[in-house]
């Protein structure tokens, strides 16, 4: 199982990615997908600008994916992360985890997202509707806590 990692500005299609993952095989019993969207909480956001570290972004997500593959019996693993200006409501990130049974797929997708948030070199900055540049989004302690729980799990 070779994880598929893509860092791109272009949007992606959830269904196309699931179809590609499962094409030509009938042994997959579960595909769990997570799509992260650009969220506007109070109607002031024009978009989020995502800066990334080319080269390291692919490498680091690849390392996280390799850890997931070593930990769960996966039949497919996809991570797509967009960069550049993303509008509210648009997709930012996609994780697909495929396995024979649902538990491994759920856990692997959850693990991938927790570590994507804390280890993948991406930074968000707000652009406001009034044309001004907002601040850099601050990292949340709860994201570190979410990633930390995988350190103790068996």
């Amino acid at each position, binding site marked *: 199982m070779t994880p598929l990692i893509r860092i791109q500005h272009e949007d992606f299609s959830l269904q196309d990615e699931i179809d590609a993952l499962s094409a030509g095989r009938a042994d997959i019993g579960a595909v769990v997908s997570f799509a992260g969207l650009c969220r506007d909480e109070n109607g002031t956001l024009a978009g989020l600008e995502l800066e990334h570290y080319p080269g390291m972004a692919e490498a680091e997500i690849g390392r996280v994916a390799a850890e997931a593959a070593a930990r769960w019996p996966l039949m497919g693993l996809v991570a797509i992360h967009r960069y550049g200006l993303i509008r509210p409501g648009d997709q930012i*990130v996609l994780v697909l985890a495929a396995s024979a049974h649902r538990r491994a797929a759920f856990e692997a997708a959850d693990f991938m997202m927790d570590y994507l948030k804390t280890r993948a070199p991406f930074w968000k900055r707000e652009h406001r509707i009034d044309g001004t540049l907002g601040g850099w989004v601050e990292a949340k302690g709860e994201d570190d806590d979410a990633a930390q729980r995988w350190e103790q799990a068996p």
Partner: protein
Amino acid sequence: MSTAAAIAAAGTRPVRIVYFAWVRERVGLPEETLDIPADLATVADLVRWLKARGEGYQTAFANEAVVRAALDHVHAKPSAQLGHAREIAFFPPMTGG
């Protein structure tokens, strides 16, 4: 004296340093190639050396515990040995996903 001998005599080596997000803005550069003293051992040593270069660096690294580092695309702690790293990155805590 050959170039290699000159570098050895001066005790420096060239590294590419890249900055991202607000670290990049405070330093005022996306990247630079600097001849760093060969005796800088750790990431923290390099940060101290950079802070002596000017105000932008001092602002960027004002809270050293917050700024993250990577050596050749791999996350590194302040205590990590620079070794033979060719590309060293500094950036804020990540906010992707």
